[in-house]
């Protein structure tokens, strides 16, 4: 019985993949990319528009990107590209996990306890708008080595976003859920576990999706300032060494990996919130 269900499930999955590829949405997405690339090619190489003429051409970037023997040393066939990707990914992973582990509980308490919020929130709100780059000197003073200050900076950006969204998530929970839980005999701890955490979940995951983006953003800023590896680092050194196609390669790689991480966070959220998915599916149909 189970096997049949599993097979059915797999069939459905394959079918839905095919349907996805055939759907107008997929074609629109491809068309969007094609238009973007055409614009790049035409404006830089063919028309040589002002301000665009100095940029690396689409052809130069693509040839460099897929070359087995790239002129500036970085392509999909070189070990170096993956070394940079790995360095950046590990840093983002560490920073994002740390930011989530600290930011979610902080946000939950900020949203849940008025007293705690009154102590902490003003300080939090004063620190939050400080740009990541302004933290660079402190990060270098506080931490030794290269890795820790970079991770710290990426962590900071991510942390504030996660904590704030989690707090808002708790605050938007309808009062009647708290009242219902009280009526049904739940104590404070049980209310926290059964109402506050699941109720804030949709906001937490929206926050995490933004936060993983901000994490990349602050990481690259940090890597451009200090660092020996990483995608931010190649972008910066390629600039000083006048390797323009490599800058674009770094940027495209960043965009691609950023997109994947964000999709990963989204799918974790989906699997944790089946109730929400079903609700949304129904409201669409």
């Amino acid at each position, binding site marked *: 019985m189970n096997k049949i269900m599993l097979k059915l499930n797999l069939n459905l999955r394959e079918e839905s993949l095919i349907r996805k590829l055939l759907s107008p949405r997929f074609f629109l997405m491809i068309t969007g990319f094609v238009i973007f690339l055409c614009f790049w090619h035409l404006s830089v190489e063919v028309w040589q528009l002002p301000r665009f003429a100095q940029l690396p051409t689409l052809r130069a970037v693509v040839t460099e990107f897929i070359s087995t023997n790239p002129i500036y040393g970085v392509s999909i066939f070189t070990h170096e590209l993956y070394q940079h990707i790995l360095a950046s990914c590990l840093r983002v992973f560490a920073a994002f996990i740390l930011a989530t582990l600290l930011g979610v509980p902080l946000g939950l308490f900020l949203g849940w306890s008025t007293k705690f919020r009154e102590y902490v929130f003003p300080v939090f709100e004063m620190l939050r708008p400080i740009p990541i780059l302004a933290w660079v000197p402190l990060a270098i003073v506080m931490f030794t080595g290269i890795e820790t200050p970079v991770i710290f900076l990426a962590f900071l950006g991510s942390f504030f976003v996660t904590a704030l969204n989690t707090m808002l998530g708790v605050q938007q929970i309808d009062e009647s859920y708290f009242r219902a*839980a009280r009526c049904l005999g739940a104590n404070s701890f049980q209310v926290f576990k059964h109402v506050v955490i699941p109720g804030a979940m949709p906001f937490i995951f929206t926050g995490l999706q933004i936060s993983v983006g901000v994490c990349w953003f602050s990481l690259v800023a940090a890597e451009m300032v200090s660092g020996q590896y990483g995608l931010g680092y190649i972008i910066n050194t390629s600039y000083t060494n006048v390797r323009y196609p490599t800058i674009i390669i770094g940027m495209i790689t960043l965009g691609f990996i950023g997109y994947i991480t964000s999709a990963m966070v989204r799918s974790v959220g989906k699997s944790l919130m089946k109730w929400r998915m079903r609700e949304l599916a129904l409201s669409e149909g």
Partner: protein
Amino acid sequence: MTNSPQTRGQISIKDVVKIYDPEGAAVMAVDHCSLEIAAGEICMIVGPSGCGKTTLLNAIAGFHSINGGSIEMDGQLLCGPGKPQATPGSDRIVVFQNGALFPWKNVIDNLMFGPLMSGKLPFNEIKEKALYMMADAGLSGTENSFPGELSSGVKRRVEIVRALMNDPSVLLLDEPYRALDSLSKSVMHEALLDIYAKNKVTIFFITHDLQEALFLGTKLAIMTTRPCKPKKILTVDIPYPRSYSVVTEKRFRDLMEETSHLVHEEAKKSFAAGEKEG
């Protein structure tokens, strides 16, 4: 169900006063309101929107304090002198106007929530009870659905069963059928009377629908517009079981005639005062 419930759930409200003071302008929501509800009664509270009915319900449930008077249940003080706010508890369970089933829990987990929190029964017994009560209320088959997937009528029924899972003395219903169309409403009314016949809890039911009040209630309290207090209290002497055809009977129409102008009067006052719905 286990003990004889008719002896539980007697509520006496004495001279209750509630003043809201959000911006220094004291607004009297409830003014020396007194009301006796016998154990096992269905007391219908009818009044215009925003008249302070919900304030009274919240005071009984323990969601906010009162400024004067007292509320007792079965001889025990819920709130009154020296104790401005009652403690919420599973002996008085509220069914909310907009529904408060936890959307992140499926139906069976919602039903099991109360007993699991109090931790008096083992898990398996709670689950058995939940399944039994679901079957009894005609809800079998929805165990694994999330509230977001159910119709509002079914959601309301689940919420009432969730309350009954805790053997409460009183059910406090705050316009539970407000969002339903009149056809589903009549189905829900019969279902509620069916549940009442089986469980015999005291029901404190807020509505602004007079027909609903007369159809369901054993007692009817027509409230004045703000500040809220009973304008007229009367017994609905129509025997149970009532079916929906009762609305065409003479006694029902007489009662309707007797009360509708009172309700209409208060509604006009409320409208003139520009009360917000709520």
